[in-house]
């Protein structure tokens, strides 16, 4: 049952993430990206990581993507204002794409199909266990990453305040 659900949702995630790239309208791209994140939430639930699922739901779908949409709605994106890409960039893009395909084929060749839903420690994603892991063995990295976020926040505030001081 859950294996079939996994394959169904995995197919959906691939389709939606392709639509993110192929959609002409940037707003549509963002909406497809939201759908992609929603399928990721389902993946987390399938892995019994309910906390991660809900946090992915709140943070990525509920906050970050709202800000993406917010910014894109403010930008008046028309076809005329879109910069015309030079042929050189297109050639470079084709070469980079081919390199990616070679890498992907190489890695797929090494991979074998395994059962997607066997977990070594099925309870790891629940709130209590995750909290004990984060505040036990991984306390230092956890606190360091929070410092990193704080630094980013202070930087953002500083950047937005800088013009005001000069005037």
């Amino acid at each position, binding site marked *: 049952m859950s294996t079939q659900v996994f394959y169904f949702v995995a197919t959906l995630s691939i389709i939606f993430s392709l639509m993110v790239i192929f959609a002409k309208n940037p*707003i549509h791209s963002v*909406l497809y990206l*939201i759908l992609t994140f929603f399928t990721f939430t389902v993946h987390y639930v399938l892995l019994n990581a*309910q*906390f991660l699922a*809900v*946090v992915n*739901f*709140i943070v990525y*779908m*509920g*906050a970050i993507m*709202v*800000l993406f*949409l*917010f910014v894109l*709605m*403010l930008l008046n994106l028309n076809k005329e204002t879109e910069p015309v890409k030079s042929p050189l960039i297109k050639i470079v893009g084709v070469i980079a794409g081919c390199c990616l395909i070679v890498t992907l084929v190489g890695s797929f060749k090494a991979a074998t199909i395994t059962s997607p839903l066997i977990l070594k420690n099925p309870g790891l994603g*629940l*709130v209590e266990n995750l909290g004990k892991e984060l505040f036990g063995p991984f306390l230092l990295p956890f606190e360091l990453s929070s410092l990193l976020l704080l630094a980013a926040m202070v930087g953002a505030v500083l950047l937005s305040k800088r013009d005001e001081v000069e005037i």
Partner: protein
Amino acid sequence: MDTGFIIEKFILVAVIFGISLVIAMYSTYAERKVAAYLQDRLGPDRAGPFGILQPLADGVKMFMKEEIIPTTSNKWLFIVGPGLALLCACIGTAVIPWGSPMEIGGKIVPLQVADINVGVLYIFGVVSLGVYGVMIGGWASNNKYSLLSAIRAASQNISYEIAMGLSIIALLLMTNTLSLKTIVEQQHGLNWNVWYQPLGFLIFMICSFAETNRAPFDLPECETELIGGYHTEYSSMKLGFYLFAEYINMFVSSAVMATLYFGGYNYPGMDYMATLLGPTWAPLFGVGVFFFKIVFFIFFFMWVRWTIPRFRYDQLMNLGWKGLIPLAIANIIITGVVIAIIEKF
């Protein structure tokens, strides 16, 4: 998963869905009556006794009106917008415990659709998703007033979500669980969380007003500046969906406030009532008490709407970022220190 389980849950979902729609319907009537009372008028009184059939007349009007989709709009997203708004409003009811487990014909039936162990966060996720209905509808209308409204809604929701989350953290420090069922069970009798977290409750309530786009924070649909806000271009039942979503949101956030801070279905003297009424009727009485609390909060929402004038946009942002967030952080620190002291002695 046996068939009985599925049927039981299906009936429960259908009943809750029906009740939320009926309450949303009669909220429109109640809102007019409350407004009329506060402004010393009569309010609707033509359709049926005391105007009690007014919501039905409004519903028929909504269905019968002409459906207009502007030619310059983005057609699919224009339709998706109101649908998403109503969907996000309705799915919040899934984790709320409506009553203590009830005995029907020798079988214990929990009066909650799903007791997931991250219930509080689920509610929070649904709330944060609710803004997409407004944003998508506002953008797809291709009208500058709708777009401005969508942008206002987005920034307002993001800002107040932070303060809301912080006020919940202080509560979670006390309850030690994210499951709404356990949180309600801890508030047995009159042991409600609001006595321990008055400041947290105040912040949470103000943020719920902002998240449901209700006055005094109804800037996304501010008529004096934005015509009708995000639903300027909408007509017929699509407009009805937006209005309905607002009332269902109000119902759900009233239920969440009653669950988290006002004891849910708990009331003083419930043990005595349990022995008096037996295991079938006592939980139903609890459900009645819970709905009484919900109706009180809905009334409170309306009371505030017709009493306090709308905020200006910069006042809204100042209140959110410079008022509520520091207060909520102070609340977390105080709660944490007090809990640490209590645990030490």
